[in-house]
Structures are given as C-alpha cells and as structure tokens.
C-alpha cells in the first residue's frame, strides 16, 4: 500500500543558527529530502552601492569594510586599487608589500572562520571553531597593532596605507608565522581523516566543473571543482607576480574538496607572507592624495582574488569628487547562484553543510 505523503514547506532562516547571517531558504522537503528550494536575499541590504553616489571617494572607503565583514582588508584593497587605477595614482613599494601581507593575513582569518563554521554546521560542538578562533585572534591582534581596529580596519588609502608598520609588528608576525604550520598540522590530524567527516562531506553537494564555470563561481568553490583559476595568477595585480606560490585545486567539487582547498590555501598564504616579509623594502607608505580629489571622468573595473572569490569594483567617475556609480562584484553572491543545483535531492542535514561549504557572508551578498 502506498502511503500518501505531502511535501512540507520549511522556512530556513532568516534567523537560523546555520545561515551565517540572515540568509533565508524556502525549502520544500519530502520527509528529509529537499525537493525544491528558493533562496531569499536582502535582509541585510543597506544600500551601500547607492550610498557611494552621495559620498566622496574617500568617504566610501569605510563602507567597503562593511561589505564582507570578515575580510575588510581585501575589500579595502579592491576598492583602493580600482580608484588608483582610475586616477593613475602611484603606490610606494613598501605600501604594496604591506598590502599583500595584510590581504593574506585576512585570507587566513576568513578561511579559518569558514572551516570552523563548516564543522559547526556538520555538528561538532564548537570545538574546531574555538581551535581556529584562537589563531584568528592572534591575527586580529596584529591588525590592531597596525591600525587600532579589530574588525573593520579601514587601513588602506588611495596611494598607500594609513600608517607604517609599528616596530613590534614584524617580530610578532614572525612568531605567528613560526607557530601557524604546527597549528595547521594539528587541524589536519584531528579532522582531515575523521570517518564521520568523510562520511558526511565526501561526494556530498558535488558542483561539477561545467556547472561551476557556468554559474561563474570563483574562489575556493571554483577551485574545488578542479578549475585552476586564481586572479593572483591569471591576472597578477599589486606585486603578486613576485611571489612563488601554488594554487591548490580539488578533483570532485564536493564539500570535502572545498574544505581541503581552504586548508591548503592557508599554507600558501603563509608562504606569500613569508616572502613578503623577507622582501619588505624601506621607505614611505603613502603618496598623499588631495582630500577632495577628483579623478578624471571614465570607468574602470579592477578585481582581486578575495577570500571567497573574485572581488571586483566597477567604479564610474563623472569627474566630480563623488563616484557616479560603484558596483561591487560580490563573490559570495555569485557563488550562491549554483546553490539550488547543489541542494536538490539532498537531505536537510546535507543542505546545511553544502550551504556552509560555499562560505558566504551576508554583508556582501545583500550589500
């Protein structure tokens, strides 16, 4: 006898422990299996792009911190580079090196948090999260040394960075670089071969190579699907062409690969920072720009490899002191376009970890 069943409409979010903010999924579930899903965005919409039009170029800088609030340094860097490209501003060598160090430290923070919350979604009782948070706090201390802030740094400026490194920064950074590889090894020993982690994440939420490219996914999500695409390599910006590093890729594009790619990028970021610290030149860190400067009319698109993928700023100037229009290519938002394909047919518990493995930040999705 066939049992008559009825699909259940389940509302995940906007207030839910594992939506990483205020994301909402309207899910249609048949028992535990997800049959249809509709993502709903916009609960954190603050109109940042529109706000840009009424602020001067410099005044918009703090707002970029608030896009993806766990990678403020990268957002700063992407925006500042776009405006510099528009106005043709030179950046001192020392500032370039400092920017790279900051951006890579920020990448380590973002990846640690992504891995930690991925395991939280998988059901560990916060233990990996706390292990990673301790290292994250050490980097936050380093950031506090250079700019006095612990979350929204607002550190970069058009033509450089706001302050030079304090004398105690490099010793502290070296200490961190020395102890971090052992920490990464510890995470690997505890998590990478755990049977339950394998059972939960291997072959789960597969994003095929074609689907990833078609959805124009970027960052670790794309690389886990086996596409060797990293803006730092394919379109080197700043001084990334001077460093020697690998681009880790996955093979299957499942949740486990996305987690692996992030772990391996931690090591690569450490490599880059080490090289940057060794090559750090002396000199000034800021080429001053007039307070109310007016870039020439025109438009420019500049992108960097953000923590979650290609982070781009499209800036249009009409020659006044305010941007005519700024558009942000937010990697979290575009990576989410593949979500529906990845979720359908999986169970509710899988849906949570697939969503977690994409690693989005709602500040950036809704802007």
């Amino acid at each position: 006898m066939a049992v008559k069943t009825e699909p259940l409409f389940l509302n995940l979010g906007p207030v839910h422990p594992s939506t990483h903010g205020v994301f909402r999924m309207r899910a249609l579930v048949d028992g535990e299996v997800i049959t249809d899903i509709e993502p709903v965005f916009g609960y954190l919409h603050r109109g940042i792009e529109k706000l840009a039009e009424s602020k001067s170029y410099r005044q918009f800088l703090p707002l970029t911190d608030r896009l993806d609030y766990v990678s403020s340094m990268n957002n700063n860097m992407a925006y500042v580079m776009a405006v510099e490209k528009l106005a043709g501003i030179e950046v001192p060598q020392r500032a370039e090196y400092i920017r790279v160090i900051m951006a890579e430290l920020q990448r380590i923070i973002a990846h640690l948090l992504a891995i930690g919350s991925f395991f939280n979604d998988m059901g560990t009782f916060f233990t990996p999260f706390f292990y990673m948070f301790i290292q994250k706090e050490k980097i936050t201390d380093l950031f506090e040394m250079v700019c006095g802030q612990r979350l929204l740094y607002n550190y970069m400026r058009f033509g450089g960075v706001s302050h030079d490194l304090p004398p105690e920064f490099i010793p502290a950074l070296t200490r961190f670089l020395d102890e971090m590889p052992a920490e990464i090894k510890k995470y690997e020993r505890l998590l990478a071969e755990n049977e339950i982690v394998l059972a939960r994440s291997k072959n789960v939420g597969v994003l095929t190579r074609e689907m990833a490219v078609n959805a124009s996914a970027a960052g670790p999500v794309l690389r886990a699907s086996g596409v060797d695409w990293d803006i730092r390599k394919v379109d080197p910006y700043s001084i990334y062409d001077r460093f020697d590093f690998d681009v880790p890729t996955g093979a299957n594009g499942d949740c486990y690969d996305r987690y692996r790619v992030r772990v391996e990028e931690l090591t690569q970021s450490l490599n880059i920072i080490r090289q940057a610290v060794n090559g750090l030149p002396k000199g000034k860190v800021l080429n001053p720009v007039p307070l109310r400067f007016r870039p020439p009319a025109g438009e420019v698109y500049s992108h960097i490899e953000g923590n979650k993928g290609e982070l781009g700023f499209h800036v249009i100037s009409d020659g006044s002191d305010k941007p005519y229009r700024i558009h942000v290519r937010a990697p979290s938002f575009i990576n989410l376009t593949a979500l529906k394909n990845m979720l359908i047919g999986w169970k509710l518990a899988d849906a949570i970890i697939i969503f977690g493995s994409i690693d989005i930040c709602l500040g950036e999705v809704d802007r």
Partner: protein
Amino acid sequence: MVELLLLPASIRSELPFGYWLHLLIFGLGIITLLLTSVIIFIWLERRLVGRFQLRHGPNRAGPFGLLQSVADVIKILTKEDIIPSRADKLVFWMAPVIAFTPVVLMLGVVPVADGALLADLNIGILFVVAISSVTSLGVFMAGWSSYNKYSLLSAMRTVAQLVSYEMPLILSMVGVVILTGSLSLNEMVKAQSIPFILLQPAGFFIFFTASLAEINRTPFDLLEADSELVAGYNIEYSGMKFATFYLTEYCEAIVLSTLTATLFLGGWQGPWLPPMIWLLLKIGLVFCVIVWIRATLPRLRIDQVMNFAWKFLLPLAILNLLLTSLSVIFWPTAPAWASGLINLSMLAVFILVYSKFFKPGGKTVAV
C-alpha cells in the same frame, strides 16, 4: 540514613513499617541523588567541554563556577511559560512528565551496594528496557504537539532513531544476562568478579554506542541538531517545561552511565572504598567519556544513523549473542582471558569486514 540504605533488605524488612520505610528512604534517596547529581554533572560537562575547547568554562558563580547551574535553574524557573496558540495543549502539557518519569523509575532497580536497591526485581533488566522506551514517546509527543515544523521533523527522527537503537542495546544486554544467568541487576553485579567489559568488549562497545544514540548524544544528536533543527523537539518549550526536558536529557545520560557501570564495569564492586563511592566514581568516568565524545565528533546524517544501527550494530549484536551463548554451552570453564580474546577478535574481524563495504558520502535521492 546512609547506614539504613546499606543494610541488607532482609534485616530492614524486620524493622517496624520496614517495607514502607525502605520505599520512602530509597524513593527520596534516588530522587535527591539524581537531581543534585544533575546539577553537578551539568557543571562538570560545561567545565570539561570548556577545557576541551581551550577555554575556561563557567567559573564566575560560586567556587569554580559550581553555582552556575543553580543560577540557571533560578533563571529558568522565573521565565514566562509560553504555549503556542495552535499547540495540542493536553499533549503539550503531558509530554515533559511522560519523558521524565521513566528515567527516574529506571534507577529503582540499580543496586548501590549488595542488596541495597529500591526493588530487587528478578526481571530487573527487562524492567529497565521496558520503561526506557517510554521516554521516546514523551519526546515524540512534545515534537508532535508543538505545531512546529522543526520539532515535527525532530519527532520523526526520534521515533526512527530510538526504536532502531533499542534493538542492539537490548541484544548486547542479553550477552551479560547469559553470562550471569539472571535478569536481576544485583545478581549481575555480584557475578562480576572480573568486570564484564573484559569478558565482553564487543558487548560493551555495542551497548555504549547504542546508549549514546538513546540519550541523543553526539554523534547521534539528530533530535536537537542545533545547526539544522535549531533546538529539535523542545523548540517551543520554555520555562519549567523546558527545564524538565533538559533535566530528562541529563538524567538519561546519568542513568545510562549508571547502567553501563552496573552491567559492564562491575557496579558497586571495588576494593578499599565503600561500594556506593565506587559506583559514583564509575558513573562519573562513563559520563566524562560521553562528554569527551561530544566535544570531539561531528554529527551523522539520519540515513547514516539508521544504516549504522541496522547494518552494523544489529548484526554485530546478534553475532556477539551467538558466540557468547555457544561458548557458555560448549566451553563453560573457559578462562576469562580466552573469552575476552574471542570476543575482541570477533569485534575486530567484524569491523574489518564492514569497512570493506563502507562508502563515505552519499547520493541524492530522487523524489
């Protein structure tokens, strides 16, 4: 009172009103002991988990934070008691009571010293098994009556999981029953001149794993999977009704630790110290292991949980039962090391064979 507790039942029954005195003392004793130890164990768990996660845990209220649970109880008692407007009120009210009562009853047949127990039933273990399944009914009632989709999903998982894991749990107990030749828990403890964990390592493994599932602890905590179902079946409960569920969970953990200690670790038996202290020490030890597992492992998915019960634990339990009964029939004079070794090698071979068929991950389900 303690002297009275430890008197053999035969002497006590000769006192005036001996039978009622006995019931009164033990009834009060069990409830007081259980409720106070819940407070201690909650504190212990939070402190231990804190240590596992490289932090301090609660240490502000009272010495070493011992009064933290007391403060929590006061807070929870003064909370508003909310009943959802569309809840099934009668069932909603009854659920916490039905979940809590059997847990207390289970302790009635556990001896704290030789012959010192509320009721020395000659079918003690059968009573435990029968009464313990009532708790899952209470949990299901709570999930069903709340009129909430999350709690409904959790309730459905409850039924599936608890019913599945009861079977290996009972079958592993039967191994102990065969070795003892009695269903009375007192007789079982007396038979353990060598703790049964050494004679029945496989039985202990099955019992402990299945009891983790019965008390909804990691890695089987699907009922309250906080990253998926927010809080599970008790999502709509607040105030004292929520506290009752919380109490139930911890009491269950304590009761199953007690049963593990009684069935496999030699119960009150042990040199030098008084029997009751030995029992408490063993309960504490088992509870600490449960906490350790909670702080370490991620959660399984519902189909993996069911697979594990039906395809791994149940065959293993049947095999264990078969081997134990064969050895009792054909080699009753077997030395302890031989039967322990046979049991252990069976466990090893079974795990080895099972791992050949184990596939991590999963696949999508077409609906």
